[in-house]
């Protein structure tokens, strides 16, 4: 066997892709040729260096979410379409509500409809955030980076906590627009799942909730504290999402009570 033949075949040999007859010939040559043995050893070292030095990558959670959403029937496309449709109808609905303001039962029905519209609004914002480049304005796992980032961008300073120790790392923050106002969106991760937390100052009223809604494979949790209205959205399992919501509620009650109005 010539060196040229050996060098042409040794990679296939080490890959286990050389036909048995060729492999035997190569082994016979290897046993008596120190130069070719050195060549093979060099290739073995290269393999080890590639394994150690060239990383594989994990698909980013947001990418996985988008592909999942597409696989589950283009829910994002549907949600977005409904979102824009509703913007057209909202002024008409408002006019209608003014026209029937005397009829209490009608306004009640409209309030309920407004609650559904708000939940849809929040869900559409969640899905939009999963599209490329929309997830965070301030990507950071440091609550002391994310919280001050909102200064000057919002008329309130949202409570921000990191729950990495509990398996829900903070991924960052973002401004979003929900219910006709700019709100804080905090982004958390759980394995491959993204959790969006939307919050803004609550209208005066009793604290309540949480209530739960499931739509298009996403769970939404909603509650109100003395200070804030919270919406939490994810495709994470409901039990885990409730666990996460509990952490948020605890953190909120410890951080915001001393500073409450």
């Amino acid at each position, binding site marked *: 066997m010539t060196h040229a033949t050996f060098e042409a075949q040794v*990679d296939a040999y080490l890959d286990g892709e050389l036909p048995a007859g060729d492999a035997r010939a190569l082994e016979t040559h290897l046993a008596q040729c120190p130069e070719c043995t050195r060549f093979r050893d060099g290739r073995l070292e*290269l393999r080890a*260096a*590639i394994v*150690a030095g060239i990383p594989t*990558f994990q698909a980013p959670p947001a990418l996985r979410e988008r*592909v999942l959403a597409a696989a589950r029937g283009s829910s994002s496309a549907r949600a977005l379409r409904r979102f824009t449709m509703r913007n057209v109808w909202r002024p008409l609905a408002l006019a209608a509500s003014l026209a029937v303001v005397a009829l209490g039962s009608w306004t009640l029905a409209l309030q309920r409809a407004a609650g559904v519209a708000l939940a849809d609004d929040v869900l559409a914002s969640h899905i939009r955030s999963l599209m*490329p480049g929309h997830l965070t304005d301030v990507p950071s796992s440091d609550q002391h980076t994310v919280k001050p980032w909102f200064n000057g961008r919002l008329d309130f300073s949202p409570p921000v906590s990191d729950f990495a120790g509990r398996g829900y790392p903070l991924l960052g923050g973002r401004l979003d627009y929900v219910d006709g106002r700019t709100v804080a969106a905090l982004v958390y991760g759980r394995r491959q799942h993204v959790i969006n937390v939307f919050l803004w100052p609550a209208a005066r009223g009793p604290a309540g909730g949480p209530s739960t809604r499931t739509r298009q494979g996403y769970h939404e949790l909603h509650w109100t504290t003395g200070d804030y209205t919270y919406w939490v959205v994810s495709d994470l399992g409901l039990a885990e999402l409730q666990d996460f919501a509990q952490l948020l509620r605890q953190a909120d009650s410890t951080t915001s009570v001393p500073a409450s109005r």
Partner: protein
Amino acid sequence: MESSGRARFEAVVLPHLDAAYTLARYLMRNAQDAEDVVQDACLRALKYFEGFRGEEATSARAWLLTIVRNTAHSWRKRHRPDALAVEFDEREHRETIAERDPEAKETLGRALDRLAPEFREVIVLRELQGLSYKEISDVTGVPVGTVMSRLSRARARLQEALRGRGGALT
């Protein structure tokens, strides 16, 4: 697609998303482009999934990687001539490759990035994804003999890059 088809797509194709993303990362040499390519490829895969009749997990992976590979190549032609990508991505690569032996990793990683795409893809498919020559031949659309010679040449170049570092590994 019917819901059973979607469930099958989730079960058969999505487990290979990391492999798809890794291939796209090395073909595009840029995280954002890789994400876009994989998303695009998955939408295509979803569209053509009815026509996919593979039974084994490995063939589903090869099938998805074929679509990713073709999507990446047409993307590069359309959006970004190769020459433009080189200096842009070497910067990024330096940040992603560095752990135990930063020097060796950077040299190998950069050497891989400098390989022509047809050499780069066979290294990724073989060394990082563990595909057989036959599967690599299916994914890249070239005969097994060509796969074999490309792998051999690609490895020879990577080994030169390692030696160029001062021969510490040989």
